[in-house]
């Protein structure tokens, strides 16, 4: 593995990359499912408000829900069809949440209804932000944070650099890789919007060293004279985490409890950038996204452009699965969330659908949990220098308050490095999730 740059962050781990199966496969269009389930909450923030009635016919790209306030985005019809029902549907959280059930017309095309274009050259920053919100763009790297909210620089703060995050450090996932290879022009079209909206002077596209072709393609696509660079980073997980990326590229740290803005940078996922570059000039909204369907449990692995709202069952049925499928999770294996039901639909934040068979899960789930032997591996892995061993011990004894007060529990972003390296197979991240939830609940109670 050639080291293109020595710039990186401290600690972290090296999980097997497992990208070879799909990184060479071009993005393919996925068919429409018989029924699309479009949740009203696909992002962090408030759910959108439905603007359609049951039985109403909609055209692909038509807005079907409007944002409820600033921390919310619009939704667009992913296909032309009939709204069958507006009701509860299973969501990734495990709960039932409101969604619009849309039945596409048979033979519905991929044609998209377009709205009012917004051009980077002529629009004001506020117009760009409004357009992004209207297009329903959220962080496509998985977090699904409303992008316009992220790009809104508060008064008194200043952004020097926009980091376009193409690190894609999660194993198995190759969506960003493919987007960079196939839609470099969209990325380049998107960056000016980001620069203008934030007032930043330059953009850096950060790519891990295991995607040299993507780096080359992007570099070649940079318009002459544009303030855009490509930075190639060593392969290490979690290189793509916002804080790690910022440290790797600027040497600055985001203060505990602070935002990247405090380090005078902003991070936007490369797929999000491409989507902005693709949608805004046409004035369209998001109806589909690129995701990796892979893992040992999938027969026809690949990178697919899947309509938002496609149920996982349809996705897996279409690509075919192994018989001993045991676990399906959305996103990469380090941070992805396992699903309990295949009726959950693909949403804007879904970066991948990975299926594991008994062989892989047996290796993970079948391991006996040993007591902590204080090896300190987790301390050497944690990219934000927490003490997961101590935290784990406290968590087991329900000392949640102490974890938050003394050991920076709330700084943990659940990257999974500690659990990954733990020789005792202690589900540390799971403990921390429970602890964080308890702490948040306790805080909510005592204002």
């Amino acid at each position, binding site marked *: 593995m050639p080291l293109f740059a020595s710039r990186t962050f401290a600690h972290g781990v090296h999980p097997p990359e497992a990208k070879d199966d799909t990184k060479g496969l071009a993005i393919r269009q996925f068919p429409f499912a018989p029924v699309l389930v479009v949740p009203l909450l696909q992002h962090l923030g408030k759910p959108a408000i439905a603007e359609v009635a049951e039985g109403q016919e909609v055209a692909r790209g038509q807005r079907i829900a409007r944002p409820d306030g600033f921390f919310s985005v619009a939704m667009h019809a992913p296909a032309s069809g009939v709204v069958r029902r507006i009701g509860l549907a299973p969501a990734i959280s495990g709960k039932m949440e409101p969604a619009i059930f849309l039945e596409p017309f048979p033979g519905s095309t991929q044609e998209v209804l377009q709205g009012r274009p917004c051009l980077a050259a002529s629009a004001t920053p506020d117009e760009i932000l409004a357009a992004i919100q209207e297009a329903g763009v959220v962080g496509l790297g998985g977090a699904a944070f409303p992008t316009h909210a992220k790009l809104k620089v508060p008064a008194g703060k200043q952004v020097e650099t926009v980091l376009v995050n193409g690190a894609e450090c999660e194993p198995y996932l190759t969506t960003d890789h493919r987007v960079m290879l196939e839609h470099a022009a969209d990325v380049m079209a998107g960056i000016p919007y980001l620069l203008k909206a934030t007032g930043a002077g330059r953009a850096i596209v950060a790519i891990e060293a295991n995607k040299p072709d993507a780096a080359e393609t992007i570099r070649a696509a940079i318009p002459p004279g544009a303030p855009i660079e490509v930075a190639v980073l060593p392969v290490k997980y979690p290189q793509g985490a916002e804080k790690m990326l910022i440290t790797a590229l600027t040497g600055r740290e985001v203060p505990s409890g602070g935002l990247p803005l405090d380090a005078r940078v902003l991070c936007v996922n490369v797929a999000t950038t491409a989507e902005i570059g693709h949608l805004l000039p046409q004035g369209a909204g998001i109806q589909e996204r690129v995701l990796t369907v892979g893992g040992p449990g999938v027969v026809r692995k690949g990178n697919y452009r899947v309509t938002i709202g496609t149920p996982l069952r349809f996705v897996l049925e279409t690509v075919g699965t192994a018989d001993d499928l045991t676990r399906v999770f959305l996103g990469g294996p380090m941070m992805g969330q396992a699903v309990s039901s295949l009726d959950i639909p693909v949403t804007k934040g879904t970066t991948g659908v990975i299926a594991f068979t008994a062989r892989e899960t047996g290796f993970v789930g079948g391991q006996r949990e*040993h007591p902590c032997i204080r090896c300190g591996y987790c301390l050497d892995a944690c990219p934000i220098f927490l003490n997961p061993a101590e935290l784990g011990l406290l968590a087991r004894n329900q000392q949640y308050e102490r974890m938050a007060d003394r050991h920076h529990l709330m700084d943990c972003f659940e990257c999974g490095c500690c659990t990954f390296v733990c020789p005792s197979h202690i589900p540390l991240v799971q403990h921390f999730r429970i602890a964080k939830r308890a702490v948040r609940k306790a805080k909510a109670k005592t204002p």
Partner: protein
Amino acid sequence: MTALGKTLEIRSSPHILSGNRVDTIMWNVVLALLPVSGFAVYAFGIAAVLVLAVAVGSCVLTEHLLCRVAGKPTTVADGSAVITGLLYGLTLPPGLALWMVAVGGVVAIAVGKALFGGLGQNPFNPALVARAILQAAFPVAMTTWAPILAAGRFTSVPASLLAWPFSAPAPDATSTATPLSAWKFDHRLTETPDLLLGTTAGSVGETCAVLILLGGAWLIARRMMNWRIPAAIFATVAALSAVLHAFDPARCAGPEFMLLSGGLMLGAVFMATDMVGSPMTHLGCVIHGVVIGVLVVVIRVYGGMPEGVMYAILLANALVPHLDRLIQPRVYGTKGRGRKP
């Protein structure tokens, strides 16, 4: 599509693991101890085989029985009892009565480990707990050293080895002095090559510095040992003894002797680095090593006994909770080390 009708597992991320395993680590330590054990057998013959076998056997058996008593599945397979037994056996004098070896094995697991709740919970190194208690219980037997490379070592064993259980072993006529006691009481210095190659009297596995370092290097290469601890111990002992030697050569031997003699190598490489009994942070490990180094030199030079590695490590073990408490990693995005106030 029967596969999709099945119930799916829900488990928190991450969904892949590195392959690090407690038992892998443990068995690697055992592997690293094999050259040393092999040399012990070469040097002390049948006696070493018996001592090591009884030490390991008694530890493993105790672990198994205690798990049974507690109604839990046996934890012998994780290899930690084997390590404890092997390390403990390697620190014993080669002519120790076998019944004493067995008693120590029981003590190591029962008092040193199970009492505190088993693997990972023990504050002190179980092998050293056993050795220290044996040293206090049978001081004469524990300071009687059979000669190394004795002629008949593959055909006979020292008479003291086969004493009846709970009876005093017959005094051994052929006992010799270890390099450290020779220095302390007779002011006789052992040659460095002898110390390096291990052709001196001493505990079963402490004599051959080269092989111990080899085992340590293997573990460091496999990232199963924190190199900072032995490094800090060696540096401290070397520096301190160099200074003391310069001031009072009659009292303190030179650094090369202090480093290579006695149990320092074995202790620094295999006991002080015991994951359970050492700090978790890198700075903590360095301090841990320095504490051990200072204590070793102080006990050897100013104390009553010729050797102090065992006590130094046990005392440092007692300090580890404080090191782990006071020294925390500096959390990303915060200033300065340590906990929030």
